[in-house]
């Protein structure tokens, strides 16, 4: 029917290249990366750049497409879907393809961009590492994996990308595997995520068999297709149990991947990886994958977990728990990267909360903004450790006062922090507040207040981290201490140290000449440029969907959020039309229909592809409330920190200069110090610490232990089964049978006495017995 008038364009049609190019790049790097002048990093950069370009093109064309639709019929903007049959077995078709819509475009852009910046950053950060090439290969493959998943047209493809990322995370986190701790962290990460993957496999199976027949009948599609699953979920014909269990299983996968409570424990350990890895994993790729999965299959979860207004559901609960727990944990970390890690977890909690409460768009929006400032923050941390604190990440031991030494890093860090905390007009403000506002608007008041609390804590712990790192007096490495023994010192456990321990001498020299004998200093351009760019984006990204400024600023809402209209089936059917890579864009009059999708089944011959989610109108009151809370958080925490550290330190320094006359002043100060000390004890211990500490205790001693013991205990179970059951019981039975046989022989040997008479007796006896028995029987 529909005339093919809707603008599609080359970039949209060939978006699959975005994922393919890095994959090829990976192969190329592995193949002949080592021989290249830049050890293969150039291939990585080139391929990612190419992907970025195509993504931009795709984005532009998607915008055109949407505009066109809006001008003609304000209807459903069809995604650009293509499939290639990959293989088929028993009538089940496994395809590869692309499913390009707003969400996909947004994330493609994001992932490609962040990956590019991270790679640039790594150029400098890892220079001279012994596995420089492997690092870039893995990094590239990693991006490719995420892109595959973002593009995915069907579940199998999602699994593919999902697992690729898992593999690369293993390689990257364990990059410096000479150190047992790193490889164990890598193992833990992979294993924990893999636990979630059970959900993915099972969920896929459930959903497939739930949706397959329906998809074949109505869309002549198949049960793996994302679009078919969405339509099926909303069609009203879906069996509720399939929906429920399918969505639960898939959400378990998301929990594993996105470090949601209680499977979040692998994230902090994953900090063992090089900083660029952490920033990539925690900003836009790995951990977002889970959130993306939920966002992508939103109709399924919408129906399966009944994400309706006010309905408490699994996703929301897990989300809110995660955001609180993680935020508490962030307080008690001394490792700057761990602070950021927990903050990531808690931000992911926000996203999940958003998705769980029907705030789809804000959640996606938060993915978008969070990527920028979180990535920036990690890179800053990297920059600090690289040039400021000698590869230490301990804020209390090796940092402080770095603001003077590293102004740019400090500046960008502060801006990003504010963005994360959600200060107007930085991006965090818009995205986080939208989530909170919508949570409330959709009737989850309790959750809303918890979310506010989370915002407060976010501000607080970030302020603390900021202060410890960049203000106060330099401590440890930041003060230039134990600088010289650094190069000889290999026992040092923390990450970037690895590249000295194992880098070739060329690097050691490069390192020496890089910040030879003077203390902390600003990092080089290759490190700063990405940070600056990211920070800039972090500050403006909010305006892509700045609800406060009305319609024109709700760009994402217009271009990213799928329209919740019913669609005449003919259109969707075409999207699966056979033939390699055939795609369609056909424009059809939408069946008009008053019930909203996701609340009532669509009429015959039409399908819904997205539930009608509501959007909270912006209230300045709430906005200011949020600002207030955040501000409070920042200020209070800041004051604490100042009081804690700086004053004491200044006095102590002064003390070293003066001598006898100030002894009792010194006493007084000493008392003051005691006060501070006491103060720290009382206030912090009394307020933050018990909760946070208990939370942390629970985390380390219970959850983490559970995860770890899950490993060890399965191993012990293995030992037990192997020793007692396998070797003793099963195998024993086998050997025993042999033993029995030969023992019978032994038992019979006396009969073979060698005595003729006994032989005769036996002979005749046997005959006689047989005779008697048979006579009795027969006569």
């Amino acid at each position, binding site marked *: 029917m529909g005339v093919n008038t809707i603008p599609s364009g080359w970039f949209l049609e060939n978006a699959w290249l975005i994922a393919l190019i890095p994959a090829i790049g990976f192969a190329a790097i592995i193949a002949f990366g080592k021989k290249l002048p830049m050890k293969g990093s150039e291939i990585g950069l080139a391929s990612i750049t190419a992907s970025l370009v195509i993504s931009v093109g795709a984005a532009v064309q998607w915008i055109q497409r949407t505009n066109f639709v809006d001008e003609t019929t304000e209807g459903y903007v069809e995604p650009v879907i293509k499939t290639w049959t990959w293989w088929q077995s028993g009538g089940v078709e496994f395809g590869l393809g692309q499913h390009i819509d707003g969400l996909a475009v947004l994330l493609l852009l994001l992932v490609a961009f962040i990956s590019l910046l991270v790679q640039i950053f790594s150029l400098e950060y890892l220079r001279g590492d012994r596995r420089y090439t492997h690092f870039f290969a893995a990094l590239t493959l990693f991006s490719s994996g995420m892109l595959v998943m973002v593009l995915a047209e069907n579940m199998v493809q999602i699994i593919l990308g999902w697992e690729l990322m898992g593999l690369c995370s293993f390689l990257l986190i364990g990059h410096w595997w000479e150190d047992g701790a790193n490889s164990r962290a890598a193992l833990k990460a992979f294993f924990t995520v893999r636990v979630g993957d059970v959900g993915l496999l099972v969920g896929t199976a459930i959903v497939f068999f739930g949706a397959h027949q329906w998809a074949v009948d109505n869309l002549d599609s198949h049960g793996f297709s994302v679009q078919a699953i969405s339509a099926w979920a909303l069609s009203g014909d879906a069996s509720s149990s399939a929906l429920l269990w399918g969505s639960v299983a898939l959400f378990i996968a998301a929990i594993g991947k996105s470090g949601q409570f209680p499977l979040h424990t692998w994230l902090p350990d994953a900090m063992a990886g090089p900083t660029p890895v952490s920033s990539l994993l925690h900003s836009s790729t790995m951990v977002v994958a889970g959130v993306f999965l939920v966002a992508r299959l939103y109709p399924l979860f919408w129906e399966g977990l009944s994400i309706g207004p006010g309905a408490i559901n699994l996703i929301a609960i897990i989300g809110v728990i995660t955001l609180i727990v993680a935020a508490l944990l962030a307080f008690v970390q001394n490792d700057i990267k761990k602070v950021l890690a927990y903050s990531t977890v808690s931000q992911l909690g926000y996203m999940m909360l958003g998705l769980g409460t029907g705030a789809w768009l804000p959640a996606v929006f938060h993915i978008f903004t969070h990527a920028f400032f979180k990535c920036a923050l990690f890179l800053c941390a990297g920059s600090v450790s690289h040039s400021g604190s000698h590869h230490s990440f301990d804020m209390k031991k090796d940092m402080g006062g770095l603001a003077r030494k590293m102004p740019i890093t400090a500046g960008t860090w502060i801006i990003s922090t504010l963005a994360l905390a959600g200060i107007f007009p930085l991006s965090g403000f818009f995205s986080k507040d939208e989530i909170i506002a919508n949570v409330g608007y959709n009737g989850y008041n309790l959750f809303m207040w918890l979310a506010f609390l989370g915002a407060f804590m976010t501000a607080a712990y970030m302020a603390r981290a900021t202060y410890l790192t960049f203000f106060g007096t330099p401590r440890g490495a930041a003060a230039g201490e134990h600088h010289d023994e650094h190069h000889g010192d290999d026992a040092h456990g923390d990450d970037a140290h690895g590249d000295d321990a194992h880098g070739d001498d060329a690097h050691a020299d490069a390192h020496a000449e890089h910040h030879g004998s003077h203390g902390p200093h600003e990092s080089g351009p290759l490190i700063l440029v990405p940070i600056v760019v990211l920070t800039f984006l972090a500050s403006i990204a909010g305006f892509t969907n700045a609800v406060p400024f009305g319609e024109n600023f709700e760009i994402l809402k217009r271009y990213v959020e799928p329209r919740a209209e019913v669609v005449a089936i003919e259109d969707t059917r075409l999207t699966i039309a056979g033939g390699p890579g055939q795609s369609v864009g056909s424009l059809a009059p939408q069946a008009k229909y008053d019930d909203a999708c996701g609340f009532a089944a669509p009429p015959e011959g039409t399908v819904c592809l997205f539930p009608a989610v509501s959007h909270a109108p912006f209230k300045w009151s709430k906005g200011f409330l949020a600002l207030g809370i955040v501000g409070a958080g920042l200020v209070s925490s800041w004051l604490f920190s100042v009081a804690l550290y700086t004053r004491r330190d200044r006095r102590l320094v002064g003390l070293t200069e003066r001598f006898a006359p100030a002894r009792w002043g010194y006493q007084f100060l000493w008392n003051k110090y005691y006060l501070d000390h006491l103060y720290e004890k009382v206030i912090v211990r009394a307020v933050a610490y018990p909760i946070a500490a208990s939370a942390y205790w629970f985390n380390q001693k219970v959850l983490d232990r559970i995860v770890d013991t899950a490993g060890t205990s399965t191993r012990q179970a293995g030992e037990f089964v192997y020793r007692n059951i396998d070797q003793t019981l099963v195998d024993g039975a086998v050997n025993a049978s042999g033993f029995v046989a030969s023992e019978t022989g032994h038992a019979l040997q006396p009969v*073979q006495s*060698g*005595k*003729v*008479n006994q032989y*005769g007796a036996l002979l*005749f006896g046997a005959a006689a017995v047989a005779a008697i028995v048979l006579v009795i029987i027969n006569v």
Partner: protein
Amino acid sequence: MLAVNFLILAAVLFSIGVFGVIARRNAVMVLMSVELVLNSVMLNLVAFSQITDSIDGQLFALFVIAIAAAEVGVGLAMVLMVYRNRRSIALDELSEMKG
């Protein structure tokens, strides 16, 4: 029926013979016990030949007699041989191989 008595006699002989084979430790005695059994057989055959009124039984008996003679010849030779080698014909000493 007269012939039946022969059968009973034969059975008795047979039992004595079997007992001898099982109980006697002396090779020659065992040999003779076997001969008893054979005799009981011949008695049987002849008796049956009468009862069934057919000649086969008597022929059979003749064969048995002849062959039994041959057997005994061989047997005594063996006993002699054993006696030569170990100065004794007690059977329970002939249990070098067992198990």
